[in-house]
């Protein structure tokens, strides 16, 4: 299968992976090779086969709707690393670039 650079650029954007044009070009070549491998499964007739999403035939367990995890905000915030460029915290909040004018 041949992917275009535009395909790769779109996927990188959906995945929030910043890529340079050089990286997109090399990713296109490698991904095309991998999709050639994946293409082997397209020829298989799977009419009437139920998809298998899990190894065991079990359904999600339900549990009581009660709080099981206490408030650990301070612990979690203390773990935000404070080296240069690390996630920043202030007044119990996480700081990110402004998104609302």
């Amino acid at each position: 299968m041949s992917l275009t650079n535009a395909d790769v650029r779109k996927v990188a954007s959906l995945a929030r992976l910043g890529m340079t044009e050089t990286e997109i070009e090399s990713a296109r070549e490698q991904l095309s090779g991998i999709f050639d491998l994946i293409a082997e499964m397209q020829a298989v007739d799977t009419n009437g086969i139920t998809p298998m999403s899990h190894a065991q035939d079990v359904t999600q367990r339900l549990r009581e709707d009660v709080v099981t995890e206490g408030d650990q905000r301070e612990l979690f915030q203390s773990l935000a690393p404070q080296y240069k460029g690390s996630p920043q915290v202030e007044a119990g909040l996480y700081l990110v670039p402004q998104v609302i004018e």
Partner: protein
Amino acid sequence: MINSSLHQLGSALRAGKISSVELTQLYLDRIAELNPALNAYVTIKAETSLDQARRADTLLAGGKAQPLTGIPVAQKDIFCAKGWRTTCGSKMLENFIAPYDAHVITQFNNAGAVNLGKTNMDEFAMGSSNETSHFGTVKNPWDRNAVPGGSSGGAACAVAARLCAAATGTDTGGSIRQPAALCGISGIKPTYGTVSRYGMIAFASSLDQAGPMARSAEDLALLLNVMTGFDERDSTSLKRDKEDYARELNKPLAGLRIGLPREFFAEGLAQDVAGCVNAAIGEYKKLGATIVDISLPNSRLAVPVYYVLAPAEASSNLSRYDGVRYGYRAPEYGDLTEMYERSRAQGFGEEVKRRIMIGTYVLSHGYYDAYYLQAQKIRRLIAQDFDDAFRLCDVIMGPTSPSTAFNLGEKGDDPVQMYLSDIYTIAVNLAGLPGMSVPAGFGSNGRPVGLQIIGNYFAEAQMLNVAHQYQLATDHHDHTPQNIGL
């Protein structure tokens, strides 16, 4: 002491012949000496480990010891351990100190075992050579020009080089069995759902399964006894009665039916590996087993199916690394989207990005039916092949890996060649079956060969019996590499 079994170590500890502090220090000294060259560990916290050993010694002195009390175990750096840096082999988590314990870690703590350190691994467990780790490649102790396998390469190296008494690993497509084979040790991936995934950093959630890596099947049974058990914090953890995985170790093998899938012995299998596996089969015949010719016709599709399903699940699981609350954040960015894109671009390595891209593509609008759904349907065909096979035999055997350990850098430029090195292990994960690898000799280049044993669902005790009887009859698992200071 360094070559003793876990059972022997446990007896020595309980008899007071050695203390847990002495044993832990013995391993810490070996790590200090050998790890700079082998790079099996990424984090050592000697004081923390020795504190744990001191507590174990108190338990031992008070007669409250369990089989693994005081035994130093290396933990794969995919398991969150409270207060320990937990990196998953990634720059993304280079400075992440886990705020809680994974279920596996809790189980070992409750058993009185000592956490000896965190082992190197392929980044986010994506790799078959340990070369994708942000913390450098691990060397194969049998030949330092060779890869140890992956993703649990640090664990396999640590066990083989006697840098721990035993280790943990995880296996999504072969990540316990393949490095075990390439490093000449034993490892088992139990039935999916047997060991809780709580606190085990997620790669592909419907395939990920933790298991032990050690020197022998007998050791694996003791470790599995500790690692398994229902945990309500993992929604796929199975509620089953606690079992003793060592209960069948001494059963004779007369009448055992071994299925040999003809697809596992076809083109692509190296001659020297085939030779060792066939010799192992010969040994089993001597032990009274009979051989059944079986077929797993859809197993040839396991690699393509896996490279749709695993990246799809990974792309979803790894979307949490956005640079906001923990992990890596790029030093410079403009708006929020650029913060995400740069943090992820700089924090993830090439292979991880490749798999996120594959997964994002196959899940994107218009492609879901052709890729994800088709892969899930073939996944069922692959599982049905095993169902059919287990009507004819008790266990399935074959090679773990198509060749012995390849050279460092040998497959670096070609992801597809790397993916094909897991050709015999992946189908087992897709079906959710238990699989293990045990040492079966050495290839023409002197590097170890692994025999893969696949069992039916929940047949771990039987598989360990099958492996143990082989290890009683052979000594492949007792060999040690040279130049490891023994």
